């Protein structure tokens, strides 16, 4: 694709900023055939060459829409944010399925293509190291909710005594999750971390009355080891389910959790 300056593309009197979705590393020019439409209000998704093998995925962002009050107003509305977020993420995902990507935050804007290119170019050594670290890896997410199914076991207890025992347990747990439950949940995350290259822990609100213990993490897994990792996750899911806990796996994701400093 032929790079064009954002100013050159704009109709008269409309000033454009440059909206950047992500950076892509590829030996050949990445195809934009079938790329999603991009964020509302911005132009078509296009490629801005940065260096040999590195492109920024960008779109023209008319300042009439992408500046000042108009945008700040948009940013107060969760539905509008969601619409932009989904559009942003689907463009990143399109390239992620084809080549290594470094995702950028929603509404990363530069005043021009030249500014965007200069900024990214200035960070190329670090970015290339990051690309090298991400190449051949996948991000997977895991969440564990401890003790969720215990309420159900109270209903299905086989005898009255069982029922009372489970009820007592539940009552004891209503203020705080049992230490065993927390240990099991954290142990699952830890053991998945041992099979991963990197782990980023996810914060959840603390457990409390009516709120079970929840924990989670994102894992950077070698693609060549992902089969082993997933098999282990499935085993843990079954093990935890038998103890009344719930483990969920999602992925592969673009490496959102492994691109920041």
């Amino acid at each position: 694709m032929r790079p064009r300056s954002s100013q050159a593309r704009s109709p008269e009197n409309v000033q454009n900023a440059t909206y950047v979705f992500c950076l892509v590393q590829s030996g050949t020019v990445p195809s934009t055939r079938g790329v999603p439409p991009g964020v509302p209000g911005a132009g078509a998704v296009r490629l801005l060459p940065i260096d040999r093998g590195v492109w920024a995925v960008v779109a023209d962002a008319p300042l009439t829409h992408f500046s000042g009050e108009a945008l700040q107003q948009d940013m107060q509305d969760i539905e509008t944010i969601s619409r932009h977020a989904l559009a942003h993420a689907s463009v990143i995902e399109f390239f992620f399925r084809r080549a290594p990507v470094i995702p950028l935050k929603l509404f990363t804007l530069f005043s021009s293509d030249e500014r965007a290119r200069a900024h990214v170019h200035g960070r190329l050594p670090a970015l290339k190291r990051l690309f090298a670290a991400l190449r051949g890896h996948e991000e997977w997410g895991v969440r564990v909710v401890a003790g969720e199914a215990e309420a159900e076991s109270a209903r299905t207890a086989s005898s009255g005594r069982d029922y009372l025992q489970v009820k007592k347990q539940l009552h004891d747990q209503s203020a705080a999750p049992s230490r065993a439950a927390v240990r099991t949940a954290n142990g699952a995350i830890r053991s998945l971390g041992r099979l991963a290259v990197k782990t980023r822990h996810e914060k959840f609100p603390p457990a409390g009355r009516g709120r079970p213990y929840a924990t989670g993490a994102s894992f950077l897994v070698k693609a060549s080891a992902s089969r082993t990792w997933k098999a282990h996750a499935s085993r843990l899911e079954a093990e935890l389910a038998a103890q009344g806990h719930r483990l969920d796996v999602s992925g592969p994701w673009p490496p959102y959790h492994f691109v920041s400093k």
Partner: protein
Amino acid sequence: MPRRKPDSDWLFPDAAVPAQANDESSLLDVLDNVLNRGAVVEGDVVLGVANVDLIYLKLSVLLAAVDKAVTHDPVLKPVAAGPRQRPPRARAAAKKKSRR
């Protein structure tokens, strides 16, 4: 591994949807990802986004999904954190189907 591609999004049926964003919980993940991650390159403009407490939102959606599964739909497992991996049996069945 095959990625499950949703037909449409729950909130914006006309929007192009990332494969991950096919349920409420995943939309929150996407929001969290694009708002809070990916900071190696800072743009010229930094925008203030409405202060949404995604951590609490994510937990409540996660719990709602669990609750639904326990009380209403014991057969189907809910999708609580992005598209779940298909269980091996379902995967094998799908493979068989596609070969036909």
